[in-house]
């Protein structure tokens, strides 16, 4: 038998005990090097041992508990998805593109960790226990690496059987000798690891482990002497997958959103007076990578789409937890979620998008939340918490009963201050004290009602905070939109010129002309329709771009913003 790079069989690649918390194990299967690590939630990750950025082995990186940090440039990859959540060289950017390391399927069973050279998104052969597995309380032996061809190692193991009781062959590179099962992990063409399982924990475990270790060491020495006499087999040469074409260039505008993802409402509960928590779980596997501050579009049963921030911490991808405000004067969005959606219902959500990225290069981070605005800031606090970065979270609510996610807030290690029932003036002074005077590398993030955003913005500006240190996210645009102008737009890449009359948006005119253009909130708040401006002067009416971005005149929101000049040239 010769090894095949595309052999989809499951093989053990490590013992469970090889993977303590906060360690990265270096493994290999069929020539492919693997970085294997256990997250703090117990999940085992089996990834290609190579950072997608510059090809450095991830096994020299750092297991931060929920993310793996590459040693070369500090890129963070999330538990479960291997999606990139942070690029320190560009701390203010949310990685708009989906950078995801290659992952392999994983199963943990019988004290061993198993994987297979299969596409983890499309597993053709799911993990199946070996015949007879159900009868044992398996106890793993010390793994024995051998510099010999895996098939020779299997043949060598078979010679250990007494003459009157030959070895039973098991599927794959495995056999049973008496009641002990041995698996041969095909590391490479000329390298293998013997992984044995005893059917139960022996009375004197150390003595038994030493006994088998001695026996397998002798077998190893014999096999290696034999292998040294043969020409060394050519190592397998696995190819590295290419990254997607959009990753090969450096776009600076957001990518249109992908397909929707079906989710199940796993839990619905009253988190606080007026705040309903929803836990949205993937139907199978995990949900996509998100960054702190990210939100999802939730497609509601009545056809409406609403945005909600993800509250999760790093690497928590089995479900997203969102908080929904129970509004008395609801416009039908939240109302539907709160009143008609129940536990067990299916919903569709978008992939996470981030218009509110968190920098992890601040010497001081101030998080200010008002009411339901706690949701993105809770996620940010959790990321900072896990990386042991300092932060202060201020959470304002009208009453004590309105404090949502209280248990989650109490689990944080940073400074968390909850301010309840403060009169308006006192809110102002509390914000002012919380901000303090600005100095280099300090950042404030605020989410809450418009009045609070304005208060933070003006107070911060008055206390010397520059625009780029004040981060906020609008979920809606309360400003009146002036759509009285008329002008032409030239679409450079589509080679088209369209006239935008008063009363119509650029977005509507492009859609009428048959173009597919991504959009979401259509009120200049979410950033989805961000478009690069090549020529012309923009009449910005959105609340997404900050003042310096607006002044730069290099991009715009086509859903509300218009032209001051007679003509605009857009990169579409």
């Amino acid at each position, binding site marked *: 038998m010769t090894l095949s790079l595309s052999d989809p069989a499951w093989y053990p690649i490590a013992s469970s005990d*090889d993977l303590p*918390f*906060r360690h990265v*194990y270096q*493994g290999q299967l069929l020539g492919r090097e693997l970085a294997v690590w256990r997250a703090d939630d117990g999940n085992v990750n089996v990834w290609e041992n190579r950072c997608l950025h510059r090809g450095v082995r991830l096994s020299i990186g750092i297991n931060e*508990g929920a993310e793996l940090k590459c040693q070369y440039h500090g890129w963070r990859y999330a538990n479960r998805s291997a999606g990139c959540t942070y690029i320190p060289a560009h701390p203010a950017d949310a990685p708009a593109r989906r950078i995801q390391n290659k992952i392999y399927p994983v199963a943990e069973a019988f004290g061993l960790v198993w994987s297979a050279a299969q596409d983890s998104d499309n597993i053709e052969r799911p993990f199946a226990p070996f015949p007879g597995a159900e009868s044992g309380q398996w106890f793993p032996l010390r793994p024995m690496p051998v510099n010999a061809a895996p098939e020779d190692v299997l043949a060598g193991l078979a010679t250990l059987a007494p003459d009157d009781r030959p070895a039973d062959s098991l599927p794959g590179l495995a056999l049973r000798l008496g009641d002990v099962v041995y698996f041969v992990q095909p590391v490479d063409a000329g390298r293998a690891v013997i992984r044995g399982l005893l059917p139960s924990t022996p009375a004197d475990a*150390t003595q038994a482990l030493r006994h088998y270790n001695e026996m397998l060491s002798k077998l190893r020495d014999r096999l290696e002497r034999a292998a040294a006499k043969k020409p060394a087999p050519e190592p397998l040469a696995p190819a590295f997958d290419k990254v997607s074409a959009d990753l090969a260039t450096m776009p600076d505008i957001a990518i249109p959103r992908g397909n929707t993802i079906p989710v199940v409402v796993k839990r619905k509960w009253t988190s606080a007076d007026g705040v309903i928590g929803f836990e949205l779980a993937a139907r199978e596997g995990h949900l996509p990578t998100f960054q702190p501050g990210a939100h999802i579009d939730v497609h509601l049963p009545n056809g409406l789409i609403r945005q909600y921030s993800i509250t999760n911490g790093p690497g928590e991808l089995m479900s997203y937890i969102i908080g929904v405000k129970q509004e008395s004067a609801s416009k039908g969005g939240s109302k539907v979620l709160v009143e008609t959606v129940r536990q067990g219902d299916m919903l569709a959500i978008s992939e996470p998008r981030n218009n509110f990225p968190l920098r992890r290069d601040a010497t001081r981070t101030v998080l200010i939340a008002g009411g339901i605005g706690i949701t993105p800031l809770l996620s940010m606090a959790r990321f900072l918490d896990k990386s042991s970065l300092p932060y202060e979270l201020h959470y304002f609510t009208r009453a004590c009963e309105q404090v949502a996610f209280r248990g989650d807030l109490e689990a944080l290690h940073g400074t968390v201050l909850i301010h309840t029932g403060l009169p308006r003036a006192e809110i102002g002074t509390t914000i002012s004290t919380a901000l303090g005077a600005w100095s280099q590398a300090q950042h404030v993030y605020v989410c809450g009602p418009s009045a609070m955003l304005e208060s933070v913005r003006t107070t911060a500006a008055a206390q010397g905070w520059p625009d780029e240190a004040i981060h906020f996210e609008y979920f809606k645009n309360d400003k009146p939109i002036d759509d009285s102008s008329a002008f032409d737009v030239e679409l450079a890449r589509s080679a088209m010129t369209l006239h935008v009359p008063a009363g119509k948006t650029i977005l509507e005119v492009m859609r009428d002309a048959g173009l597919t253009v991504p959009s979401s909130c259509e009120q200049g708040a979410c950033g989805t329709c961000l478009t690069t401006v090549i020529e012309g002067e923009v009449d910005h009416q959105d609340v997404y771009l900050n003042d310096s971005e607006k002044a730069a005149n290099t991009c715009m929101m086509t859903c509300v913003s218009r032209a001051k000049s007679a003509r605009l040239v857009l990169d579409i």
Partner: protein
Amino acid sequence: MTITLHDFELSGNCYKLRLLMSILQLRYDIVPVDFFPGREHKSDAFLRLNPFGQLPVLQDGDLTLSDSGAILAYLARRYDASGQWFPDDPAVTAEVLRWHAVADDITATASAARLALGFDYPFDLEKTQAGAHRIFRIIDEHLWFGEKSGRDWLASPAHPTTADIACFPYVMLSEEGGISRQDYPALRRWTDRVRRIPGFIVMSGIFPAGPALPAA
């Protein structure tokens, strides 16, 4: 009294002393020695300090010492009030000295392979690599059975000793000699533990480990 270390940054043997002095919070001065490319350790002035022409050399007041293992023992006996780094107990002393000898074997193999590949030394690469693998196999087995019996370090005490300091650098630098540690998972885990000793510092070629899981 002033401690002075005659030091070369890229030397694992010099780093052993920097590491222990950092852990023991000792203040010391460094005299850089141009080992490469200047070969200053073969200069007359240096040979007067150490006729063997080897780094490191440590001076403590009037005392001049050489050999990293010997100096580790000296620093621990002289300055470690806790007595844990080079314990007094005769059996443990013997055990630690045994590992100091292993450390010298690692220097003769893994470090020699690194010098051959990185610094053009005329050593037999295949032989030194094979020698290092032979030693790493034994250490991995020792550490694996140690983990099973609750022993985290090379010697038997429940805390690290100079045995760990002496063996660590050239284990960690072995890849520069073309010696992968992939087949030694228990050895790899031990290098995490060493890198989490309070006071740990790095040298060029060795990266820090991240923090351990906080105790619940």
